[in-house]
């Protein structure tokens, strides 16, 4: 489209560059500020010689092998479990209305922050948790809490449980999103019907016909999940073993140590973490290739039934168990938040009180206000940048380049533990007093990709003829943007805002690091309290953490409806 020269158009044209700069500079700068100390260059402490002492230190740390192994095994196993169960659910319920019900039940899990989910699961499996109470004493014979290590078991089983339950709804919703694409979804369903009419049992039909076409669309989400799981901090911190913890948790502890010399080792650790994550992604890709090669002949061998009935029943059980675990975890947390005296092994508290809520709400006033302020600032920036960048695409009549679209997802693909410390150090060099701005900028790195992802498809799908009609009526680009496009995109914009807020609310590491301990949000408070004394206070914080995003999504759903009916 040929556009006139105006302030608006100049702003639009320059916005992609601004967005790129806001994403690339912090990530790259942060990485460099980690690579240099890792190689021994850390002038603040007087180290100006390049050497590998950091790596040597790291190598000599007791349990370093266990840390790396724990990171690798928990993330790989949880991702495989989440993927396999997602596929079993899709295969079993592909033509059944149950798929929509499961989607509706699991959807809300997606917006529960990792920290809150980890706290809820921890409550469930802790020795005096809901799980052991429900089994006692009639089944287990326990009169006092059992002596098991959950949720801090050395094998990382609790971490695997937590990660799987968080990853699964994401993968399932991504898959359903692919199937919801009009043309593709229609074709895949029709092909499934063809396979049924050729005598294939529904499960086999899904795995032999639908999955091979569906998988390419899921590869990137799966790799993102795997990368995230390998370097995440919240879940292993709350649900993992302490000595040794996962590598990412250990790196965080070294960075935070009062002994600044440990920063060198931590930086070396961050480099190792990136390498591990990359190796995991490579490992997944190789596994995928191997399975693909091995299964080629099976696809066309004409076999129609592989114990489909058993698999189907197994899937019913898995789905039921999973929903029960989630339900019990949430219920347990609500009960704890209102519990007075609660003796073991009673399933319900003796008394219910509101005093934990009252005192916690009193305490959390400042963190709550900061949470909202940071969320609104980061989301506002992200929405403006996203809308202007998408608008610039339409001015230049071409989609942003492949490189640009990769850069947008950079903060999600590179383990944040690896670049955030460097970034914080850089920010401190530049403006050490503006903690709030630092936190907002750090949040923006993670909010922007999701907001962009959420808005891009609706913006690009908007029928361009509306703009052509408006332009032919003499409307300027700015007028078209404000009066045609934005009102038409009201619903997707509200959803993107809600998503951006939810992502910001859930950020732990960026808040902790960029805030330098001076800014607390609900999430950082909840994580701090999770390993502390009062389970009841912790329950209140985790619940508030869940209620906040739920509230904004409710608003995002209700507000456009009210605004639109008002207009009629």
């Amino acid at each position, binding site marked *: 489209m040929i556009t006139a020269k105006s302030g608006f158009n100049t702003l639009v044209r320059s916005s992609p560059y601004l967005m790129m700069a806001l994403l690339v500079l912090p990530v790259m700068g942060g990485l460099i500020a980690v690579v240099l100390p890792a190689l021994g260059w850390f002038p603040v402490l007087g180290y100006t010689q390049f050497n590998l002492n950091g790596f040597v230190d790291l190598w000599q740390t007791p349990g370093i092998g266990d840390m790396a192994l724990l990171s690798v095994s928990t993330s790989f196993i949880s991702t495989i479990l989440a993927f396999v169960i997602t596929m079993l659910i899709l295969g079993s319920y592909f033509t059944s209305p149950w798929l929509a019900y499961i989607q509706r039940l699991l959807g809300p899990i997606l917006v529960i922050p990792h920290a809150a989910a980890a706290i809820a699961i921890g409550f469930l499996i802790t020795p005096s948790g809901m799980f052991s109470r429900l089994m006692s004493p009639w089944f287990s014979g326990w009169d006092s809490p059992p002596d098991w290590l959950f949720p801090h078991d050395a094998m990382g089983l609790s971490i695997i449980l937590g990660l799987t339950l968080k990853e699964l709804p994401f993968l399932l919703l991504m898959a359903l999103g692919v199937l919801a694409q009009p043309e593709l979804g229609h*074709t895949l369903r*029709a092909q499934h*019907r*063809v396979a049924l009419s*050729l*005598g*294939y049992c529904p499960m086999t039909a899904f795995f032999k016909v639908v999955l091979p076409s569906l998988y390419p669309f899921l590869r990137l989400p799966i790799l993102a999940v795997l990368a995230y799981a390998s370097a995440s901090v919240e879940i292993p911190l709350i649900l993992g073993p302490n000595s040794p913890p996962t590598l990412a948790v250990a790196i965080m502890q070294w960075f935070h140590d009062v002994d600044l010399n440990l920063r060198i080792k931590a930086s070396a650790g961050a480099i190792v973490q990136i390498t591990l994550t990359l190796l995991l992604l490579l490992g997944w890709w190789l596994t995928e290739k191997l399975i693909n090669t091995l299964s080629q002949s099976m696809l*066309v061998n*004409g076999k129609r039934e592989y114990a489909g009935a058993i698999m189907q029943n197994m899937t019913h059980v898995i789905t039921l168990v999973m929903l029960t675990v989630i339900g019990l975890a949430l219920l347990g947390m609500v009960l704890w938040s209102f519990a007075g005296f609660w003796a073991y092994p009673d399933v319900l508290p003796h008394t219910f009180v509101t005093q934990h809520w009252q005192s916690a709400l009193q305490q959390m006033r400042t963190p709550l206000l900061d949470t909202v302020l940071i969320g609104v600032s980061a989301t506002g920036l992200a929405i403006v940048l996203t809308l202007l960048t998408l608008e610039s695409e339409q001015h230049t009549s071409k989609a942003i380049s492949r490189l640009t679209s990769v850069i947008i997802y950079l903060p999600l693909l590179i383990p944040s533990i690896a670049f955030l410390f460097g970034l914080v150090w850089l920010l401190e060099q530049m403006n050490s007093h503006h903690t709030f701005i630092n936190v907002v900028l750090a949040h923006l790195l993670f909010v922007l990709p999701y907001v962009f992802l959420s808005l891009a498809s609706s913006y690009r799908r908007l029928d361009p003829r509306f703009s052509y009609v408006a332009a032919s009526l003499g409307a300027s680009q700015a007028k078209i943007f404000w009066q045609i496009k934005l009102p038409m995109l009201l619903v997707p914009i509200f959803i993107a805002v809600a998503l951006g807020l939810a992502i910001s609310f859930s950020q732990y590491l960026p808040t902790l690091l960029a805030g330098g301990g001076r800014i607390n949000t609900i999430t950082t408070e909840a994580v701090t309290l999770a390993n502390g004394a009062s389970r009841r206070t912790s329950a209140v914080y985790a619940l508030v953490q869940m209620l906040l995003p739920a509230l904004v999504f409710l608003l995002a759903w209700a507000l456009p409806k009210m605004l639109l009916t008002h207009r009629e």
Partner: protein
Amino acid sequence: MQKHERTSAAMANTSSLVIEQLTLKRQQQVLLSLNETIAGGDILTVMGPSGSGKSTLLNWLTGMLPKGFSASGDIYLNEKKITDIASHQRQIGLLYQDPLLFPHLTVAGNISFAMPAEAKAQRKATISQALSQVGLAGLEQRCPQSLSGGQQARVALLRVLLSQPKAILLDEPFSKLDSQLRQETRQLVFEQIRQHKLPAIMVTHDQSDADAAQGKIISLFSVD
């Protein structure tokens, strides 16, 4: 309604598809009532505008009736009642207007996918022979997307036939082909149906399809 000699000849063998006292409803509204016997090699044509229930009829026959629809009546395939049997165990082949070849498999892979698991040894030879019979010799290892529309339609036909169905349903099977190709493909499909003595039901809104089928024609009307 045309009757021709072929009908009586086909009646001699036992192959038949019987629709007994079918009433199809959307919510409470009756879409269609049907009582038909189709002998092997015969093609019943169902015509009507969209919304008249043609596709719903096919969905009922394959056991894939969508939500909101209900049906009473029975289906007998070769004298066996299949009304309550699962979709994938009915042995009724389907041919849609889109060939719906599986993109991750080769041409041979698509056909092999449809063949019974037992017939392993002669599989390759059978596929090559079938392909050359419909003028597609040597295309075994091609990927389906690289074929023309007419070629894809022929592969889809082979895929159904080699799965050895007991009856076949055609859902506007030629509507996406241009007229020359349409005639050729139609002739090929009908020939094969007659050769295999399969009872067939074709849903279409094209009169020339109906004429070429040379069987009974049922016209449905829009209900709304």
